[in-house]
Every structure is written in C-alpha cells, then in structure tokens.
C-alpha cells in the first residue's frame, strides 16, 4: 500500500548505501508494518484500561481516576511504569521455566492474530486466503498461557483458574467457530478483506442503506452468539470465573507480580480489541460506511470497534457473574445447537429462490 510512496524516499535518502540494504528491504518493511500495527494497539490497550475505569466509575456514580495528569489521562502510563519497576517474584515451588513461559504464551497469540486483520482496503500485514482459519487457529492457542501459568505456579487457586479456563475457552471456541461458518457460507471466502467486500453488496446497499446489508441482520442470532462467546472467550465479566476474585482471588495470576502480571492484562485487553475488530469485520461491515455517500475507511472500523468495546465494559458494570455450571450450559446446550440449526437454515436459504446472496 504505502510501500510505493515510501520506497523512492528511502532510496533517495540512503543514496549509495541502497544496494546493501536492498536484499533485506522486505524484512525491514514488514517489521515497520508490524510496529505500525502493534504500537497503536498497545497504546489502545493502555487507554482501554483507563476508559474502562472511567466508564464503570460513571455507571456506579463515581468519578474514576482523575488525579494523574489532566482528567487522569496519565493514569495508564503511571500504572504501566509502576508494574514495570516492580519485582517479579518466583514462588519456591514453582516450575521456573514454565512460570516464565506462561505470560509469554498468553500474549504471543493475542498479538500474532493481528497479522491478518485488515483495517481498511489494503491496510493489512498479510492478506492471506485462509485468514479466518489463521485467526481461529491462533486464538485457540491463547488458552495455553493460562493453563501453563496456572500449573507452573504450583498453587491451588491458580490451578483452579487454569482448569476453569481450559474448560470454558474450549467450549466457547466451538460456538464461535460454528457461528463463523455461516459468515463464510454467505461470503464465499476465508479471506477477511473479501468477507468485508461481500457485505458491500445487496438490496439495501443499492438503496444507499449499507448498514442493512451487513451480515448482522440476516445472521442476527449468529451475531449475538459470536458477541457473547467473544466475551466468554476473553474471560471478561460476566463470564470471568477464571479469575473470579471473590472465589479464587485472581485465578492463574495469583502468584504473578510486576511485568509478568502486566503481560496477562495486556493479553486480555489485546484479545478484547481483537474480538471487537473481528466482530466488526465479520458482522458489521468492517470499514464500510453505514449509509451511501460517506467515504469508507478506517474511521468507520475504529468507530465500530469502539462501540463493541464499550459494550464489553457496559455489560461488565451491569451483570453479576454467571455460575460455572450455567456458563457450561449456555455454551454447550444453547449456543452450539443454535449455531448448528442456523447453519442449516442459512444453507437452505442460500439454495432457495429467496436467497439474498448471489
């Protein structure tokens, strides 16, 4: 995308040095793009924690953080610095190697998944054909961080947290994956850019009302299933039994301190942003404008992601925590049958003369 404009500039800048840089240029360019994605992401993570505290504060008629910097805006920076300079403690009975590996395995998939997310036409690190499969594969690896951390801590509460996490995340991965199958069916592609483009066509889009051509309307039950499963998959309230502080203190994070603890938080919030990006791509038309005439672009994607993130915070402040058996019941006995039935319904719909996907 931007390579064509940047390349002559760099060539001119380096002058005679360019031939030595040329063989490694693709590597440099890819690394630059990775930084371009990850730096804003980590900044969003920091300010998402701030926004969460503010929103929950307002909902509970409090003020929220307002002491550090103007309107408390430097609070996440202060939190980050504090965690950065704290000591990472190792319990004596812990399995040291796995104890270190746990947070790394939690954050690596949360960041790696962003490789295939398109932000705008052409704004993507790797425009691969099996993008959806890659996302499903990488996000299914995220549970290892929690399991490994819980086991390596060699302590009761972390272990409970790990057990709960493995059961819950596997259950909701199933309904998320099955929910996505209907999206793949109507988009006829596994490529994320194609999935967004497929939502720009349709009867309503022709009338200038693109918002009704997006997948959320014809696949409304799947949209609901996907969003709720997304909340459960990131272990957020009201499905946060993995780290339920009133039952098992903080689950897998009990024994962690300092930066290792911060890694779990980074991973959780990066996953939240990832889920919101995926939901806006799969169901809310990505970077497409809701009404005709307005320019498509990243601003729409950002607005949709922000709306979904607000939904995450909103339900955290609204609902009490689910009981564990009810979480399992919702996943296996409600969502999985519902998705299976809806796959059949969409299949019949697509084959019938009433089809809206041509």
């Amino acid at each position, binding site marked *: 995308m931007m390579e064509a404009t940047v390349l002559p500039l760099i060539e001119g800048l380096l002058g005679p040095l360019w031939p030595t840089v040329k063989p490694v240029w693709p590597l440099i360019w890819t690394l630059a793009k990775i930084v371009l994605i990850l730096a804003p992401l980590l900044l969003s993570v920091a300010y998402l924690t701030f926004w969460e505290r503010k929103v929950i504060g307002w909902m509970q008629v409090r003020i929220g953080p307002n002491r550090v910097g103007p309107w408390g805006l430097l609070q996440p920076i202060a939190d980050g610095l504090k965690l950065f300079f704290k000591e990472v403690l190792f319990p004596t009975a812990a399995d040291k190697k796995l104890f270190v590996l746990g947070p790394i395995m939690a954050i690596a998939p949360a960041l790696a998944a962003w490789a295939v997310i398109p932000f705008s036409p052409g704004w993507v690190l790797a425009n691969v054909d099996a993008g959806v499969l890659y996302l499903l594969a990488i996000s299914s690896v995220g549970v290892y961080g929690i*399991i490994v951390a819980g086991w390596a801590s060699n302590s009761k509460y972390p272990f409970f947290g790990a057990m709960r996490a493995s059961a819950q995340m*596997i259950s909701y991965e199933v309904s998320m994956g099955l929910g996505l199958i209907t999206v793949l069916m109507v988009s006829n592609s*596994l490529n994320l850019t194609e999935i967004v483009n497929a939502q720009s066509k349709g009867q309503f889009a022709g009338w200038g009302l693109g918002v009704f051509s997006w997948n959320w309307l014809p696949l409304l039950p799947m949209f609901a299933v996907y969003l709720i499963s997304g909340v459960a998959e990131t272990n957020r309230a009201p499905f946060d039994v993995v780290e339920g502080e009133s039952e098992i203190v903080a689950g897998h994070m009990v024994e962690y301190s300092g930066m290792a603890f911060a890694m779990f938080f980074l991973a959780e919030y990066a996953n939240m942003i990832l889920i919101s990006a995926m939901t806006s791509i799969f169901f809310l038309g990505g970077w497409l404008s809701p009404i005709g005439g307005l320019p498509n672009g990243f601003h729409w994607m950002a607005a949709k992601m922000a709306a979904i993130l607000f939904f995450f915070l909103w339900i955290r402040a609204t609902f009490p925590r689910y009981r564990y058996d009810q979480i399992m019941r919702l996943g296996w006995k409600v969502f999985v049958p519902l998705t299976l039935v809806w796959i059949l319904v969409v299949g019949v719909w697509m084959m019938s003369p009433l089809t809206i996907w041509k």
Partner: protein
Amino acid sequence: MEFKTILFYLFSAVTVFAALRVITARNPVHAALFLVLAFFNVAGLWMLLQAEFLALALIMVYVGAVMVLFLFVVMMLDINIERVRQGFWNNLPLGALVGLLMVGEMAVVLSGRYFGLANLPPQDHAANYSNTKELARLLYTDYAYPFEIASVILLVAIIAAVMLTLRGRKDNKAMHSSDQIAVKAKDRMRLVKMSPEVELPAPAAKEGEPT
C-alpha cells in the same frame, strides 16, 4: 540456499528435538508441551508444502483442543515417574517390535520415491488456487459416502464415551436452570390466614413453684 530450505531445516530440527523430548522428558506436563511444540513445527512444514488448510486445521484441532484436554488430564494426575519406569525391561521387547514395525513402514513409504513409484511431476497452481476448496470438493462429492461413514463412526464413539462415563450419583445436588426458572411463588411459600391478635391463655398457676 533458498529461504524455504532454511525454514524446512529449522522446522524439521525443532520437530525432531521436540519429539525426542516428548519421550525423554521426566515430567509428563513438559512432555505434553513438547508435543505441542512438535505439532506447531509440523504445521509449519505443511505450510511449506502449500497445504495451509491442513496446517491450520492441525493447530486448531490438535493444539487448540486435543492437547488442551490432554494437558488437563495430565495435570490432574499425580504421575509417579518411578512407578511408570518399573516395567520398562519387561515391556521393552514388545515396544521394540512395534517401533521396528513403524520404522519399516516409514521406510517403505519413503523408499517409493527412490524406486520411482511416486515420480509425480510437481504441480504448479495458479495464484488463486485454493486447496481448501479443492479439499472440500473432493470430500463432499467424490468421497461423500466414506466421509459420512467416518463422521457417523465418530458420532457413535462420542455417544459411547459419554454413556460409559455417565453415572448418576445419588448425592448429586446439581440444579437444572429450567426447573429453577419455572418455579412459582406458591411452590415455595404457603400463605397462612390467621387473625392478627390471639388472646393469650391465662397461665395455669402451679403449686410449689419457686418465685
């Protein structure tokens, strides 16, 4: 050396190392995690063979689901490594036999290439060739019946596994959400009509009572 060749040797080396550690690691949890590492690198090898659907399915199914449950079980068991090693010399002949058989079979598979059995020309595909679609077309048209039969067998296995482990315990206090929701106030509470004031009966005076 081409970059792909370097990647191949990297993935293969890590796969072989991880596979060796699976059988030599003393701690079963470490062994399971090395198996995960081996799966990842095999997926990388498949990716090099342009089988991206299979590679990602391997990660999704084996790493994302099967190995998580495997770890779940291994972590719950307190395996005593000394006890596991007790029967080593007794089981060695049988194990060695199975191992040799597998080596032989692999040799047959690999030797085909040298004896000219598998001299298929390498296929070049167009850029928009999707092996996911190709795989699906084969599975759901040419091999529809074998595919369906395989899935029915798996379904039977699932139901059998559930039935084998399903035991209703007598002291089970699990609640059903639907029953809880269907409860009415009158099932739980009885309203009794009674007059608000009841006249106390006059206490019968007893003789010899301490005052």
